[in-house]
């Protein structure tokens, strides 16, 4: 019987290998066919300084377009999945997802304000606008939840309702801005962004997405025992020695930040935060010590796969990735529902 420690090391190694394989698949497959030999040569050139002579366009595509997209997709998938796990545990609701706190709605309003109203006088990019909008919406939701709960964040129902109220408000503002100011072309362009898009990913995005996502996953991993303690409710967690308000505040804030950063980089990609936690539970059970890393890994691999699909399924056209995740996520959710172990 292997010691727990070395088994853990082995499993971690296997997971990292799986992630690396997914990233390489994401780099090798894309809109235009590039032979795998060329892909490996490019990676060898860039990583180990091998001196293969290659077409600079191929090199650019593999290294600057596809690799950055795969890394951003992996970070985003992991971040959203883990956020979903946290919210489902803290809010005791299997339907909770990272956008519950108004973040996606706020990001849309922010992006649309920058695009249509010219807010920020050309200094702000769509992404910055989205991030500011997301944080604004989340702050409103948090204040609303506090006001409704009489100062305590214990009532999960209040948080959910406050999130719904905030989301509806910001969605209404987005619709208002679009109908009032946008031409058909602008509306089309913004729709594409709002549905989730990994097209413009570059190394700057990677430098933001990877550390934020990693930090989020690590912070949540630190709190897996606390998350387990919430199984029987908030008061039960308190009686088990979890400093409830501190943990809720820290984890929800962490979730909000990670989600806001991800949404501002790639738009609203739905279903990942909702379905991946359930899929992971089907694989390894409900104990968060195993659930959190598996959800992160599954989310990363899923989003890389969805991105590849969005580029290859229709020749010459790129589908918005939010559409692909929904088309896969909805039936997957149905399957999980039917076969899931948490049937009462």
């Amino acid at each position, binding site marked *: 019987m292997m010691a727990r420690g070395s088994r853990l090391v082995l499993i971690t190694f296997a997971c990292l290998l799986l992630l690396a394989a997914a990233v390489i698949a994401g780099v090798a497959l*894309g*809109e*235009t066919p590039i032979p795998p030999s060329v892909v490996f040569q490019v990676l060898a050139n860039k990583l180990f300084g091998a001196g293969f002579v290659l077409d*600079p*366009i191929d090199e*650019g*595509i593999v*290294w*600057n*377009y*596809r690799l950055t997209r795969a890394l951003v997709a992996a970070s985003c998938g992991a971040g959203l999945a883990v956020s979903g796990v946290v919210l489902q545990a803290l809010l005791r609701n299997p339907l909770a997802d990272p956008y519950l706190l108004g973040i996606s709605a706020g990001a849309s309003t922010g992006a649309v304000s920058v*695009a249509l109203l010219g807010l920020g006088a*050309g200094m702000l990019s*769509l992404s910055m606008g989205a991030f500011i909008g997301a944080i604004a919406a989340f702050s409103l939701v948090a204040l609303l939840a506090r006001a409704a709960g009489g100062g305590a964040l214990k009532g999960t129902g209040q948080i959910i309702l406050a999130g719904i109220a905030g989301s509806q408000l910001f969605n209404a503002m987005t619709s208002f801005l679009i109908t009032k100011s946008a*031409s*058909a*072309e*602008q509306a*089309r*362009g*913004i729709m*594409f*962004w709002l549905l989730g*898009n990994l*097209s*413009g990913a*570059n190394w700057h995005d990677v430098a933001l997405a990877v550390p934020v996502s990693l930090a989020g996953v690590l912070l949540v991993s630190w709190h897996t025992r606390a998350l387990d303690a919430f199984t029987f409710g908030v008061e039960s967690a308190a009686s088990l020695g979890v400093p409830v308000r501190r943990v809720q505040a820290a984890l929800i804030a962490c979730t909000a930040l990670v989600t806001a950063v991800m949404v501002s980089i790639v738009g609203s990609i739905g279903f990942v935060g909702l379905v991946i936690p359930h899929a992971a539970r089907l694989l390894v059970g409900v104990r968060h010590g195993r659930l959190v890393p598996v959800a992160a890994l599954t989310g990363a691999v899923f989003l890389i796969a969805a991105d590849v699909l969005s*580029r290859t399924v229709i020749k*010459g*056209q*790129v589908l918005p990735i939010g559409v692909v995740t929904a088309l896969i996520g909805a039936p997957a959710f149905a399957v999980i529902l039917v076969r899931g172990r948490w049937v009462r």
Partner: protein
Amino acid sequence: MAAWRDVFSSLRTAVYAYFVDWEITRMFVSRLAVLAASIGLSTLAAASPTQYPLTLENCGQPLSFAAAPKSAVTIGQAASEILYSLGLGDRLVGTSLWFSNVLPEFEAQNAKVERLADNDPSFESVINKRPGLVAVQFEWMVGKQGVVGTREQFHDLQIPTYIMPSDCDGKDNLVGADGTRLQPFQIDSLYSSVRQLAAIFDVQAEGEQLVGNLQARLDKAVAGAEQRQAKEISAAFWFSSADLDLDPYMAGQKGVADYMMKSLGLRNVVESSEEWPTVGWETLAKANPTVLVLARMDRRRFPADDIEKKLEFLRNDPVAQHMDAVKNGRIVILEADGMQASLRMVTGIETLAKAVDGFDIQR
């Protein structure tokens, strides 16, 4: 006379088109038959006054005029400039949908005409002018899903609407964001627009003269098509992007921009049949067109509308900067209005021909 010229040029184009593109050949040959049949009519009608009541079929709807309309409102810069060119400026009571400044020769006249809107006007502002005709450049302005209104809304108020055939001939505007061409664009539809508007307003002499001029200029510009064809020059038109991070709007097959390329003997690397589809930069980079054409416009709806931003992107993007066209400076800048069915289109073709011939392109 003009009709004979049409026949001759169509014949000549058909002959060389046979070596260029089977589709174009087919189109020209079928057009030939129609033209031959109508030669008698058009020779007679060439410079004669319009016989009223005039009925004509326009984009699937019959229009009937008891007399030349006394006033008109235009929705679309192309329609406005055609009416100015026909000398009908004093009958224009309102214009809208402008992409750039009016052609300099009409500046003084345009200043006297009220501009209802820079973009799409409201339905009420148009009918308020009580025009005898509304001339429209795009079906998505006035049509089944018209932003301003449907044709029925106008016809119910006894206001006829004329949509330029260049936007509805062989095009399904209900599919694809800017419509999808079922048949490749033909320059004839532009000539028809001019001729039909001239007929409606009883200025057919001016109409024939205008068409004649356009024809001559076009023939001169496409003269070198064979040589360019032999050099296998490919091209792509970049109109704009919703965001520089998102996929660009490129000219698709069968549209006006594509016609410009084909008539000059250039191959369009974009394969979609939509008028302005989004194409990923990866696909464009791999296709590596010999020449890149960028749209210059005054509009600033998207950051990429600015020609400087487009050029900056091409210079700095780690993949695009390695494209042949970018590395060797084979970038042509055309006015955005020159990429649509309008009088400026011919200017656009001339500019493009001159630029491409000026590049040092080896086989």
